[in-house]
């Protein structure tokens, strides 16, 4: 008796819930902003942030909006970087999304239908074209960038000197890289720290032979010939004992962590880590463009920025807020704080100056790093991703490691990734 009544009650309630959820959920309802009696619009802005310093920087940006538009207030909510997207998608699912959404280019396609195109509503002058391009999908500008990143080769200058290997420089080739990796693999240390993370791994494959896992019309092609060839080469570094294989599929930041800790003499990492690598490493760090393969040095580019959620009750105000958050003043401020490589061309020099001032004895390394970033931007392409890129990333972690350890052939692993992620791309 009791049991049946309980179940019926639950089902009845669930029915009510479904009806209300259909009306309000899925990002169709309005949320994330409010207008008070005085006419001031308050907009919620959600962003990832860690330290107090980082939060203070973001609060400063929010204040810039009110300075420029006194009738707009921005209310900042933050989440830890690793969990930001988990939180954001739950909020979208429940129709409680903020008005101003922080977005990464790699996640853009999953959220494309939930973002208001900004074309014609916000000023796009002064941005580096690559940064704008990375946050564009289907010809629509879905977010405005606040930073821009390319992938670089980080190397241990001390180790190179000690082993008598010529330091990498612009124009160095895949063959040079392999030779250096082999020579530097001595005494329990490895020449290179491998990775299975998307930007880190795929950029190397791209630079090797131009292999791309996604077609220009955003379809997965992990099992294509160039991908197999490039992965065979990359995994060969492990077989030749010239590289450290990640300890498990959960070690997403393997290569760069092993590099900073002095266990790997080279690693691929994003331009965003130039400052922290210089600070944390106990050795001299150098930077170079990725080794050039058959088509020259190439890297994927990524950008982060701010967009306006569909269902925001004040889209015009939100677009204005995004314009200020990514405007010249905001960019100048962030560059001066050393946040990341600016998306606006005019402010990029200020970022370089920040890094130099941070550690004057590393000035040369910093100049080299920025030069390499600019090199990368020139030959870089945005990495366009499918809707199910999270699943793709998980599969790469699970199956690429099997290739590195020699448990599975590159063909088989790539075919598995392709096959399992076909659903929902």
């Amino acid at each position, binding site marked *: *008796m009791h049991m049946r009544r*309980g179940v019926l009650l639950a089902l009845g309630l669930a029915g009510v819930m479904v009806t209300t959820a259909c009306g309000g959920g899925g990002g169709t309802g309005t949320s994330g902003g409010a207008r008070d009696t005085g006419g001031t619009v308050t907009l919620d802005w959600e962003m*990832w942030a860690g330290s107090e310093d980082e939060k203070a920087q973001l609060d400063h940006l929010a204040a810039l909006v009110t300075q420029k538009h006194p009738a707009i207030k921005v209310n900042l909510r933050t989440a830890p970087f690793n969990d930001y997207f*988990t939180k954001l998608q739950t909020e979208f699912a429940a129709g*409680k999304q903020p008005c101003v959404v922080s977005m990464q280019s790699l996640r853009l396609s999953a959220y494309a239908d939930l973002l208001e195109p900004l074309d014609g509503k916000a000023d796009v002058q002064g941005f580096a074209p690559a940064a704008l391009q990375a946050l564009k999908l289907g010809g629509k500008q879905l977010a405005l960038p606040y930073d821009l990143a390319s992938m670089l080769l980080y190397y241990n200058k001390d180790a190179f000197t000690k082993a008598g290997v010529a330091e990498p420089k612009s124009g160095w080739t895949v063959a040079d890289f392999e030779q250096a990796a082999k020579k530097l693999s001595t005494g329990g240390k490895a020449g290179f720290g491998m990775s299975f993370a998307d930007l880190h791994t795929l950029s190397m494959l791209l630079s090797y032979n131009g292999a791309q896992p996604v077609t220009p019309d955003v379809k997965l092609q992990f099992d294509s010939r160039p991908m197999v060839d490039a992965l065979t080469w990359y995994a060969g570094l492990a077989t030749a004992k010239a590289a450290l294989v990640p300890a498990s599929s959960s070690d997403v930041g393997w290569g760069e962590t092993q590099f900073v800790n002095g266990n790997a003499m080279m690693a691929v990492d994003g331009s965003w880590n130039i400052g922290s690598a210089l600070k944390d490493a*106990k050795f001299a760090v150098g930077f170079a463009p990725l080794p050039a393969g058959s088509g020259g040095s190439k890297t994927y580019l990524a950008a982060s920025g701010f967009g306006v959620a569909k269902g925001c009750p004040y889209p015009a105000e939100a677009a204005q807020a995004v314009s200020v958050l990514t405007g010249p003043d905001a960019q100048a401020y962030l560059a001066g704080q050393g946040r990341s490589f600016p998306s606006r061309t005019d402010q990029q020099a200020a970022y370089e100056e920040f890094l130099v001032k941070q550690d004057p004895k590393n000035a040369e390394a910093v100049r080299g790093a920025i030069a390499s970033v600019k090199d990368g931007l020139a030959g870089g392409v945005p990495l366009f991703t499918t809707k199910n890129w999270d699943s793709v990333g998980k599969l790469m972690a699970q199956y690429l490691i099997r290739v590195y350890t020699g448990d599975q052939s590159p063909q088989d692993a790539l075919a598995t990734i392709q096959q399992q992620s076909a659903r929902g791309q």
Partner: protein
Amino acid sequence: MRAESPRRAGRVVSHVLLAAVALTFLYPLIFAVATALKPPGETFGSPGSLVGSELRWRNFADVFAYVPFERYIGNGVLVAGAGTLVVLAASALSAYAFAALRWRGRDGIFLVFLATMMVPQEVLVVPMFLLMQAFGWVDSYQALIFPWAFTAFGAFLLRQFFKSVPGELREAARLDGAGEVRVFLRVMLPLARPALGVLAVFTFIGYWNSFLWPLIMINDVNARGTVPLGLQLFFGQNGNQWHLVMAASVISILPTLLLLVALQKHLVKGIATAGLAGR
């Protein structure tokens, strides 16, 4: 005397063995504390080595400078403390009904209780989020406390312990004219102190370590964030502060450890030591 000494020697051997087992067992934790004292950029340098280039006690101070970790600890204590009280009250009441009273529908309802333990939390998160929104509880302490306060775990644990209390004790109290509430408060609760202590510790830890739900529910991390949310802040967009993660983890053990030590004597003072078992 002669019979005493072999037994004594046995005890010493037993303790030495126990200490060896404990040390092996605790090695990972010793390692954790050592890692918390390593400088940045050395956490993963030469795996297996206990100390880095210096013992960096500053890491512990840096945790609090990097984020307001003391506030997360405060919030965690508040949420876990309040949640534990609610769980203890609700579980003890229902466990008494399940263990000591005879009523229609008892077994059916108990089965439903148990069944709810088998639903993974990951599935409930989105419906629960909608419910909290309907209550207007998003970004509040009560949203962290109540949704998980009525788990069947406590009812089940206490029922098992209540059931091992001799029925005669209750019957005797009833014959003395005590009502059910009185029997519950005066007979059962004191006897179940160890079980209540166990439940308090487990519940506190459950709340203290809960991560997915606070992540989704709390918007203002600095105002209402708990310790696991705080820990995540050391994993950033620009690399991870592993040395701080380890230091913060070591710090975050302390409140639960204190609770455990404080409840120690209750955990062992059972029927046997209370001298009530002579039937």
